[in-house]
């Protein structure tokens, strides 16, 4: 739209026609105060704080509802305006309790700020304040009613933003009150958006209330460790007797891909870190019992046993008697290190992890086809979105938020094909319900195979579509340009190939493969596969990594179920589970491993840990530094927020085990200076050839890392050798997300689709972490079968 020029406080400014005055002012650094105005939510004009003087207008006008016009002359800070704002604050403070010294919001309260700005420091009133009792609406949401200033932000973010509509206004006049949907409590998605958006301390968090003052916390912006979306969560951290305690999660840092959004997990489910069952001491099985031990004892034992097993059977099997299982929640650096440690130190390709989506198939289908994947940010702006399978509301709450926001504010067209009437159908321009398991057939139908149409018609579904409706839906989908296609784990292997080829017939279509955990994509990309190395390089053509890492076992290793079979046959002598719980999560018979030497690194005594010979207490993602790759392929920095005494990051444990095995640690982690950092291949050192790592570091202006426990040293190597990861380091360290190009990856390989086991987590569960999160287990929706709340 054309620009208009206006004068604000004697300054000429320009803004696109149609801009709200409050936004136009903000764009040139003139702040206009407001309580009820919130970008992206509907306009209210209720708080009257944003009043400004506009020439030729008899009364003060609200800048939040006024659109800029050519030649408009505005005063935002004259005496009349300041007086009006001061009076608003005075009237509010008349009834607002002045319990700021104990209020959660004290120190970060917008009403305090306004009182400070406008000097409404004396009360003109002597009558008692109107009082209403505080209410608890859910384990995580409390409402201190007298503190509410009725800005209606919570009502709107819950309704418009979340499509939950759990909050409303009751009564009128000075008795007006925000109320929950179920009389005295909330039945909702428990996202806590209402708390975060509350400008005062009216809505408070059950997890945080009365725990600390804002200024006593360190605020660390890191990436949520739960689902695969990669929201930025700001953790409030405070010292405690066992280290650093996380006391709050919020999204005060709006720079993340999630902007305003956080779900219940990102906001509250950090509490597993301080669960009373958290392991804080290594355990060694002695006389059949797991017994506390020192770290040195543990590393020595593991090093000795791993080395024996590796060398014992080396003559015939190499390291193939050792199985390694990685995690979906450890960092890229840890996963890369684990992949490398397994192959270089343990000499085995028996590497796997709990697969929740078929990323290798996507890599195979997009090999050499750049620009075909969408970032999480792109979902917010795409003109159209096709959602195949999955239920983002439960499994990818941020993706659902992006889709809803895009549909609401930018009128994007959403098409949903699903075997269940998922909540996002409410936003859909077209919803095709298919029989369970028919998603792949729907893809083939979209691609033009009409013979499959009959199999899409679900007579059981009440809103089953007719043949014509399906053809109409297909026509609409095919006509969309620059569409984002997000698909769940319903599509695997060759079906993904088919989807990619259908997408290539559309103009500008981009794909997102939906996996379940915070770093599922990272685990894939760092090569936690028996037949794939980092960057989806097949073992069979491992020249690049042979060169980087040295001699690697040539044969494809065992997948997780194959390891179980090998264990049954007595051929798996050792199992090394890093942050994973295959026994508990995948329902494996624990007695299978009774003859194996089992080492588990975990936070809790999981089902797998209980059968282990050695258990090492691990730090979680909030207690270490590294990077995560979200399900879209956006790389982000994970920052250490807290720590629990006597736990260690998996990274350090791997290095210590390698050391205890007598391996050259500098060959594993490129630390130190000069030739040592050539990871032990020694070609550089002895042949006089350049040390490629040192050259790369220099070219990128990076110093060699000084300790083998520094994950940044491995990040150096990842950025140097893993396809697609050569993004800006500065940008990464600055906390920005960067979308990775999967097309540069290796040729990958089609995997057995049965190896994918969706986590089936919903909003209130999160694998092992969810079991140890008091908050997730406390909310009442966790127990109810149908959590979907009716639309308003």
């Amino acid at each position, binding site marked *: 739209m054309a620009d208009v020029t206006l004068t604000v406080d004697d300054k000429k400014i320009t803004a696109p026609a149609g801009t709200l005055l409050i936004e136009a002012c903000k764009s040139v650094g003139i702040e206009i105060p407001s309580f009820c105005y919130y970008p992206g939510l509907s306009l209210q*004009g*209720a708080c*009257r704080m944003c009043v400004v003087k506009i020439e030729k207008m008899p009364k003060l006008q609200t800048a939040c509802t006024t659109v800029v016009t050519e030649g408009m002359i505005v005063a935002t800070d004259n005496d009349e305006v300041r007086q009006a704002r001061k009076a*608003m604050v*005075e009237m509010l403070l008349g*009834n607002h309790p002045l319990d700021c010294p104990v209020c959660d919001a004290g120190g970060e309260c917008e009403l305090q700020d306004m009182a400070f700005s406008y000097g409404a420091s004396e009360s003109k009133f*002597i*009558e008692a304040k109107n009082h209403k009792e505080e209410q608890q609406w859910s384990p995580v949401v409390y409402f201190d009613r007298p503190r509410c200033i009725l800005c209606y932000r919570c009502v709107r973010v819950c309704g418009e933003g979340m499509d939950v509509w759990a909050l409303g206004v009751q009564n009128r*006049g000075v*008795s007006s009150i925000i109320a929950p949907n179920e009389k005295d409590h909330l039945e909702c998605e428990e996202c806590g958006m209402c708390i975060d958006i509350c400008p005062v301390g009216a809505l408070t968090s059950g997890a945080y209330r009365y725990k600390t003052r804002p200024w006593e916390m360190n605020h660390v912006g890191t990436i949520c460790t739960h689902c695969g979306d990669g929201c930025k969560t700001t953790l409030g951290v405070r010292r405690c007797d066992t280290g650093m305690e996380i006391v709050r999660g919020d999204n005060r840092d709006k720079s993340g891909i999630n902007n305003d959004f956080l779900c219940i997990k990102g906001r509250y489910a950090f509490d597993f870190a301080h669960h009373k069952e958290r392991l804080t001491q290594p355990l060694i099985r002695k006389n059949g019992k797991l017994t506390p031990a020192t770290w040195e004892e543990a590393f020595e034992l593991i090093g000795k046993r791993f080395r024996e097993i590796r060398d014992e059977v080396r003559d015939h099997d190499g390291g193939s008697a050792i199985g390694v299982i990685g995690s979906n929640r450890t960092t890229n650096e840890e996963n890369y290190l684990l992949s490398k440690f397994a192959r270089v130190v343990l000499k085995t390709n028996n590497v796997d992890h709990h697969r929740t989506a078929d990323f290798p198939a996507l890599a195979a289908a997009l090999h050499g086809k750049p620009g075909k994947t969408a970032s999480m940010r792109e979902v917010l702006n795409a003109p159209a979105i096709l959602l195949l399978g999955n239920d983002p509301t439960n499994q990818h709450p941020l993706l659902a938020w992006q889709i809803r926001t895009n549909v609401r504010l930018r009128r994007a067209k959403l098409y949903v094909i699903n075997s269940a009437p998922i909540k996002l159908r409410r936003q859909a321009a077209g919803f095709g319900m298919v029989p369970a398991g028919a998603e792949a057939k729907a893809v083939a139908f979209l691609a033009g195979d009409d013979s499959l149409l009959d199999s899409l018609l679900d007579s059981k579904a009440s809103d089953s579509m007719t043949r014509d409706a399906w053809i109409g839906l297909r026509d609409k989908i095919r006509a969309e340009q620059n569409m984002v296609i997000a698909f769940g784990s319903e599509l695997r292997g060759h079906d993904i190939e088919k989807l990619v080829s259908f997408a290539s017939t559309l103009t500008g279509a981009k794909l997102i493969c939906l996996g379940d955990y915070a770093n599922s994509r990272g685990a894939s990309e760092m090569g936690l596969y028996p037949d794939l190395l980092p960057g989806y390089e097949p073992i069979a053509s491992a020249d690049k990594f042979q060169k980087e890492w040295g001699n690697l076992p040539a044969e494809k290793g065992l997948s997780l179920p194959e390891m179980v079979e090998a264990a049954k046959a007595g051929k798996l002598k050792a199992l090394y589970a890093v942050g994973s719980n295959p026994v508990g999560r995948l329902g494996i018979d624990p007695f299978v491993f009774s003859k194996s030497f089992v080492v588990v690194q975990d936070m809790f005594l999981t089902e797998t840990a209980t059968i282990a010979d050695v258990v090492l207490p691990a730090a979680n993602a909030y207690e270490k530094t590294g990077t995560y790759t979200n399900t879209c392929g956006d790389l982000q920095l994970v920052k250490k927020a807290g720590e629990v005494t006597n736990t260690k990051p998996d990274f350090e444990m791997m290095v210590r085990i390698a050391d205890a095995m007598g391996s050259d640690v500098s060959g594993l982690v490129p630390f130190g200076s000069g030739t040592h950092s050539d990871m032990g291949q020694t070609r550089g050192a002895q042949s006089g050839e350049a040390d490629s790592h040192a050259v790369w570091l220099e070219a990128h202006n990076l110093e060699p890392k000084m300790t083998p426990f520094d994950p940044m040293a491995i990040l150096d190597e990842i950025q140097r050798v893993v396809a697609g990861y050569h993004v800006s380091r500065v940008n990464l360290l600055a906390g920005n997300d960067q979308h990775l190009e999967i097309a540069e990856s290796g040729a990958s390989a089609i995997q057995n689709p049965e190896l994918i086991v969706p986590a089936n987590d919903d909003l209130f569960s999160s694998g092992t972490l969810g079991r140890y999160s008091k908050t997730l287990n406390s909310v009442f929706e966790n127990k109810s079968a149908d959590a979907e709340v009716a639309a308003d």
Partner: protein
Amino acid sequence: MASLVSHPDEVRVISKRFGQGATNIDRYLELDGYKAVQKALAMQPDAIINEVKNSGLRGRGGAGFSTGMKWSFVPKQSAKPKYVLCNGDESEPGTCKDRLIFEHDPHTVIEGAMIAALAVGSHTAYIYIRGEYRYLSVIMQKAIKDAYAKGFLGKNIFGSGYDLDIYWHGGAGAYEVGEESALMESLEGKRGIPRIRPPFPAIVGLWGGPTVINNAETLAAVPHIILGGADWYAKLGTPKNGGTRLFCLSGNLNKPGVYELPMGYNLQKMIYEVGGGIPNGRSLKAVVPGGSSTPVLLPEEIDVPMDFDSLAKAGTMLGSGGVVVLDDTICIVKFALRTIKFYQHESCGWCIPCREGTDWLKKTLTRFHAGAGLKKDIDNIYYLAENMLGKTFCPLGDAAAMPTMAFVKKFRKEFEDHLEGKPCPFEKAGAAEPVMA
């Protein structure tokens, strides 16, 4: 049924059929009923609008905006249906005119709404009746039913090929819904809270369609204008203030009641001649000229023509035509408290200044009148009202602020008499309860 009053100065246009049994549709037809709409059916829409424009008819709800002008803002072409709304949410203290119209002449409101619909090209009209007027909605329901039975409403009205439906809708008891955009919210089944404007109802109104919304008395005048002609109607009043209006005289008067007088009728005459003067030999203390929201006039200010412009010049408003007369036994502080109690109760609570401001005014005035006032309270009361005025979301805040400011300004002495533990001087004298108590 309220008893009717009369005075020789009355010019009966809207009240012509009062007491004539016109709720009966056949009786209404005998009294020239439904002739105007048939005449309008033969007219071009623009001609109807021009006729109403030229009549000088201005909105009887209080704002006094030109009715014809309002109609002309409705776009000729619209993708969404257009609507006509009759605002019968009469709730302003001191005002009881629509009540008589609904009670005695419901068909004229229907006919006025029909003509408005023809003028703007709408096929649906709603008559919104104040929740407390339940007994009137029964009358209106019957009137609408009878009009349908005669074929005046529904498909092909009067065989003209034009379809028009009219529905009645009851309020739930909110003064705020008299504000046009809040009325639309209420009609749509939502909380009665005003909407942000622009867009104005003429462009985006009920259900998002272009909407004309007129006061019941305004619509009741329309059939008479169409039949009698714009010139005839305009000349009944003063320039720019066409016609007559229903004045609701209440308070300390010998002959209170609803009188139809020409626009521009002198207020003093209205009180002393039409209303029969102050009873019991008492003297006049103050007059609220146009419903409780209008600033009070002192006895020396009442020699003024009762039209929109003259009263604006006098620093007050014609408002809804509710003239409340106070004699010298009335405590102004108590009257101010009673007024603010109403607005505090009726504030919808949407915006800060109205929600909090009316409540603090009520609290302060309650204590003040009870004898616990402080000197600074007087200024605080004025300060609160002054800081509400013009800053609220809708005019309800102004409606509370304007009279309050006038009371303090014009009767400061009386406020001061309540100070320092002194009980209300009027209650001591054993005076009667103030009007509107």
